[in-house]
């Protein structure tokens, strides 16, 4: 080792930052939650919600002699339906437990029928349309317009494309808030913070070591998750890499500042955990990680849009999926930046070293 590198290694900021890495990488659970878990979740969701050829919708026909046989035959001709004849009680049971989407009860006259289904279930409403179509055609209906179907599956519109930016945002939030919150409160509880300020250590460098380590770990975090999503599922990256990098950087800083704020007074790990969950839970629900935030009522929207994770998720989706430019991203970046400044200013004011 040359003198120069030795001197650099013994710089307090380098030493403090090394401590952060060591504490992180020597805790297998933390490594799992930050690096492995998001990839597993992406893989699971990507596979579960993959776009596939639509399955045949199961329907039941109540057994009523010859009439039911001809109905089953007519339905069997539709490529989208799977029809079976059942006694009335068994059919009702199958409908109730969701094994069939709809029950056809052939009428006394051959040109009548009854559909039993739950109009709240989307697949039942679809089954109603398909069954009716098949029966009407079998009875000789002629369609006045000739149509042809062509199926498309476009990257960017699938569920996995929607969920990956959400998972990335959620991960940035989790590792920022947990990463800082636990480490600081644990050091306070152990009187280690007090011991550190009894040395000539610069307090700014102490805090800077958290920022530095977060930013370097961030690179791995983002590269692993985005890389996996792109390679395994072909999730698109339509925006510039620069915009993705800036959004991730700013988000990581903002959540780190929020973590610092939450950890500024707490004396026990239990106390800070409660506080962190209280802050993160609304964002897991409202900020559009797994489903769009627009599903919530309009009255809630101003609150939802002001949450940092909503801004992060929206910005990531706009950049990755829509290739949005800086002008489009400006409002979200503004919200994330405002959270950063506000949390940091408050944290510095409230922070207790002992």
């Amino acid at each position, binding site marked *: 080792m040359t003198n120069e590198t030795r001197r650099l290694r013994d710089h307090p900021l380098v030493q403090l930052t090394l401590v952060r890495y060591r*504490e992180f990488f020597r805790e297998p659970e933390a490594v799992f939650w930050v690096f492995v878990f998001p990839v597993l979740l992406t893989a699971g969701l990507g596979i579960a919600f993959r776009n596939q050829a639509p399955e045949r919708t199961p329907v039941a026909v109540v057994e009523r002699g010859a009439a039911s046989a001809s109905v089953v035959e007519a339905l069997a001709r539709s490529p989208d339906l799977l029809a079976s004849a059942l006694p009335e009680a068994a059919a009702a049971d199958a409908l109730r437990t969701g094994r069939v989407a709809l029950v056809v009860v052939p009428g006394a006259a051959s040109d009548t029928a009854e559909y039993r289904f739950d109009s709240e279930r989307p697949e039942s409403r679809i089954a109603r349309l398909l069954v009716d179509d098949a029966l009407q055609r079998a009875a000789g209906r002629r369609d006045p317009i000739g149509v042809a179907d062509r199926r498309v599956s476009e990257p960017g519109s699938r569920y996995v494309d929607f969920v990956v930016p959400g998972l990335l945002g959620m991960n940035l939030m989790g590792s920022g808030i947990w990463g800082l919150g636990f480490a600081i409160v644990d050091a306070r509880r152990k009187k280690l913070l007090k*011991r550190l300020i009894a040395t000539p250590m610069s307090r700014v460098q102490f805090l800077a070591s958290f920022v530095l380590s977060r930013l370097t770990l961030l690179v791995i975090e983002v590269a692993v998750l985005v890389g996996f999503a792109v390679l395994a599922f072909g999730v698109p990256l339509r925006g510039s890499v620069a915009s993705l990098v800036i959004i991730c950087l700013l988000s990581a800083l903002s959540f780190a500042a929020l973590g610092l704020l939450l950890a500024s007074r707490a004396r026990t790990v239990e106390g800070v955990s409660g506080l962190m969950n209280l802050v993160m839970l609304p964002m897991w629900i409202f900020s559009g990680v797994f489903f769009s935030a627009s599903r919530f009522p309009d009255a809630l929207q101003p609150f939802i849009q002001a949450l940092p994770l909503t801004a992060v998720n929206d910005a990531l989706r706009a950049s990755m999926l829509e290739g949005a430019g800086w002008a489009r991203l400006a409002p979200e970046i503004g919200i994330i930046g405002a959270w950063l400044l506000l949390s940091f200013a408050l944290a510095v004011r409230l922070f207790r070293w002992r």
Partner: protein
Amino acid sequence: MTGPASSAPSLLVRGLRKRYADVVAVDGLDLEIRAGECFGLLGPNGAGKTTTIEICEGLTEPDEGEVLVLGRRWGEHDRELRELLGISLQETQFSEKLTVEETVRLFRSFYRQGPSADEVIGTVQLQEKRAGRVGQLSGGQRQRLALACALVGDPALLFLDEPTTGLDPQSRRQLWDLIERFKADGRAILLTTHYMEEAERLCDQVAIVDHGRQIALGTPRELVASLSAEHVVEFAASPGVPVSEDGLRQVDGVEAAVRRDDTYRVRVAELHRTVPALLAELRRQGVQLTELRTHSATLEDVFVELTGRHLRDQ
């Protein structure tokens, strides 16, 4: 200002007071420690030792009083003072995931000058554990790590809050040697301990405090001499026959008699006169002795006498 030739005290405390919500932790304390001196702060639990030490370390704000550390005041020369002080707090847990060497290296990096991390690890004899995780150290090894972290800045004044609690006799002796060498270099130490033989052995000056107030000050020898009776007779009696303490006090030459469970402690001026009389009195009371010991009065006897409590039983 910090050299051995300097005559200014390394630490000067005047009229120190610190109140917490429901207790007065420090109630008008004066201290003076000179270079080359080891000063022992003794007192029962809750006496205010840690509070006093932490005020001197600039970690706690006093309500009243003056603190002059190496000629400087907190609030004016903090950064400079931090470079000059070595501190071991009563309870610090270092990060369990770091190794001994990494921890010492971290603390070393904060100071402009001082011995290398390796040297300090050698000084506290943790070489074998250098690469071991802090989480796997024994209690005494952790204490030595705390000491190493106090020494990395080559301090002129060392604050040690119960540095030998939990150390085995060997390690304690090693620490004593270290303190002796430290003193010989003309540096100063403020030490708290619950081990009286340690204070007697190491400290040039001892202050006994209770309820935040100083109740005795002097060299260990002076304090022991201040007891008019310099010998202690201890005996245990078989249970059943109660010993009358008043009867004991009536014996000629007995200065004080206290009972603890089945053991009695009697302070006497002259063994050769009083012990026979004492035995005669016990025989008269019909007491069956199971044990009999005598020793010269120690700092511990002074302590028990002054604070009315037995330190290690707290």
